[in-house]
């Protein structure tokens, strides 16, 4: 009897131990610390890679087209795309996946996302691939990228290592009520001083606020840059407590006080100005080119122009560059890494970027794509009022002014804080100095 009991105990102990080993033994090896070895010949066995993104339904169709075209070139590479919801969902899922070692091979990423992934040593540096004699780029290839788009992929360290290549890029542009502007003989403003003059005219004419800036954070960052002030740097230092930035915010705040300009918050706390614009309650709005469709009206003709610039002392021509890049993750076999690189290289090629940008609200990442017949045909649709084509033309006109604010793991916090700052100045009855002090206190404690 006693023996049987001991036996039972022993058996259950062994089973328990076995279960533990089952869990531990199944652990797939995390390959992220393995040296990068780039095969000169692509292995012939089937290679499966996954691409995570945050694209909506319409763009998923375009991505599938890209995948299908890619698989004609490399039949043994199987690419699976998976939308993970919004950009924040994508980032959160990736952060969890990196900890568990289940990250995909490629993913769309904003620079500040990449900065966080880099803390987990998860992102594959691309320089060895870019410079590889068989699989790499020529100098002509690199020169063909829109320079500011390409630069965004290498702003993470002193050595300027590439950690991503540009994929879906957008910017801010100004939509205006062309029907109204034409009727009143108004010229589209290109400077903030002109915005004031035109807005004053519209206020006298209609009694309405003429201008709205969609994103308060972008308003702060862009105007600070235009006025020649600093915002943050790559090490995460907060630098915006300067006279230029305060002058910029002071200028916009004065326009608001004079009833000439606002942000969507003013209009019953809306998030975007597009509905107010379409209801003809404002006549000019600066918003993301990715959301151009939302500003399209069936009632009046919508014109699209570059965003206004500052033309005072110390001015810098600047417009924010938005949209994401694509990064490759280290945790994969050499064959998967190479396959991922080939896929990334394909989706940033002239042919692919032309196709993708002609069907979406994003811009080509290659200069040669702008000259292609297919893209020119897309741009020609601007004459018949196509808002995506009009946006693309306006964006191209200001493409030499693109800038990116520095990305570091806390840069989205800084964005949130300056958005609160702008709201505090416009709607919270705070003085500019007070609001800056509050934001600084929040960010540097």
């Amino acid at each position, binding site marked *: 009897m006693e023996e049987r009991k001991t036996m039972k105990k022993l058996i259950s102990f062994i089973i328990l131990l076995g279960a533990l080993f089952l869990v531990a033994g199944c652990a797939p090896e995390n390959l992220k610390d393995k040296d990068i070895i780039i095969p000169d010949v692509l292995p012939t066995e089937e290679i499966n890679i996954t691409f995570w993104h945050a694209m909506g339904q319409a*763009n998923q169709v375009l991505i599938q087209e890209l995948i299908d075209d890619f698989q004609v070139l490399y039949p043994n590479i199987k690419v699976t795309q*998976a939308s993970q919801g919004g950009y924040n969902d994508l980032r959160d*899922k990736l952060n969890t996946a990196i900890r568990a070692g289940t990250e995909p091979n490629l993913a769309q990423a904003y620079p500040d996302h990449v900065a966080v992934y880099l803390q987990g040593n998860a992102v594959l540096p691309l320089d060895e691939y870019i410079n590889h004699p068989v699989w790499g780029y020529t100098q002509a290839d690199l020169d063909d990228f829109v320079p500011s788009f390409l630069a965004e992929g290498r702003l993470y360290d002193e050595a300027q290592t590439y950690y991503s290549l540009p994929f879906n890029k957008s910017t801010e542009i100004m939509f205006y009520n062309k029907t109204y502007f034409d009727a009143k003989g108004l010229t589209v403003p290109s400077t903030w001083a002109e915005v004031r003059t035109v807005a004053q005219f519209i206020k006298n004419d209609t009694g309405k606020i003429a201008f709205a800036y969609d994103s308060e954070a972008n308003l702060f960052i862009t105007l600070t840059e235009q006025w020649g002030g600093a915002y943050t740097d790559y090490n995460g230092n907060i630098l915006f407590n300067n006279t230029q930035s305060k002058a910029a915010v002071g200028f916009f705040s004065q326009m608001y006080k004079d009833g000439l300009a606002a942000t969507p918050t003013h209009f019953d706390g809306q998030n975007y100005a597009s509905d107010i614009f379409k209801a003809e309650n404002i006549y000019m709005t600066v918003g993301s080119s990715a959301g151009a469709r939302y500003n399209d009206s069936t009632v009046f003709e919508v014109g699209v122009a570059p965003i206004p610039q500052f033309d005072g002392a110390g001015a810098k021509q600047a417009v924010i560059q938005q949209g994401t890049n694509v990064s490759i993750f280290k945790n994969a076999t050499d064959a998967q890494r190479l396959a991922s690189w080939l896929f990334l290289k394909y989706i940033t090629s002239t042919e692919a970027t032309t196709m993708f940008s002609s069907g979406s609200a994003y811009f080509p990442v290659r200069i040669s794509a702008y000259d292609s017949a297919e893209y020119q045909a897309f741009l020609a649709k601007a004459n018949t009022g196509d808002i995506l084509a009009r946006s693309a033309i306006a964006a191209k006109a200001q493409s030499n002014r693109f800038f990116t604010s520095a990305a570091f793991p806390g840069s989205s916090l800084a964005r949130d804080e300056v958005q609160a700052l702008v709201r505090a100045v416009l709607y919270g009855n705070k003085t500019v100095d007070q609001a800056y002090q509050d934001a600084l206190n929040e960010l540097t404690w």
Partner: protein
Amino acid sequence: MTTKMNVKNIVRNYKWDTLFKNILLYGFLTIMAFIVVIPFYWMVITSLKTRAEVDLFPPTLFPAVMMFSNFPEAMAQADFSRYIYNTIYVGVISTFGTVITTILAAFAFARLEFKGKALLFSLFLATMMIPGEMMVITNYITVARLNWIDTYEALIVPFIVSVFYIYLLRQSFKQIPNELYLAAKVDGTSDFKYLIRIMVPIAMPTIISITILKLIGSWNAYVWPNLVADSDSMRLITNGLRRAFTDDYGRSAIHLQMAATTVVTMPLLIVFLFLRKYIMRGVSRSGIKG
């Protein structure tokens, strides 16, 4: 004479009292009913509005134009039949699993004698003190090591044991008199037979409650399925509804989202109508945990 007057007075006062009480009671119930119905009402009218009308401020209480075309348009946005299938599949299997493990464990804790029973049971109860959200990352890592990410196993296996339900059913089992067990033993019944023939039928109402609550919980699950399902074919309806209508600019087509939500809420509503009695009993039995 005076007594008669008094009785009249008392009756009148009583009538006024009940009337007043009823007005208060039904007034309160009406307000509460409104609070419960408004989200549903809002979902249905939003599903019938145009995109422009959804954004209007102040919002309209009834759609200006009935957009029945929202429904087919919404259902075309994603493979909702697949999502529903996944949800039902995961719900049924994990509920079945939960009921089995719960019955066996509750029987062991309620009836059997073994070493460390009290300690083991307190350990079980102790895990209830830890919020589930805290275990999400460790669970994810475990599931990832088993290579279960993006499979049904990841959606089902972590949820086939519930300490709370074990506790609930154990209490129910404990109320069954010892004499029944001893009598059965005298008749030579095995423990398992006793469990199946005697205890399960007696505790059936509790088991039905557990089944229903578990199904509802599984239908509503969001955070975990969102984490472990990577591909579209493994997605549950909750996650599908959340993401199918968001474009890459971050804006949602709310009218379509609500149309799809209305469609997938209907099955639950119908289930509720049929099983109302059991659901209400289950919820009241388990206290506030819904």
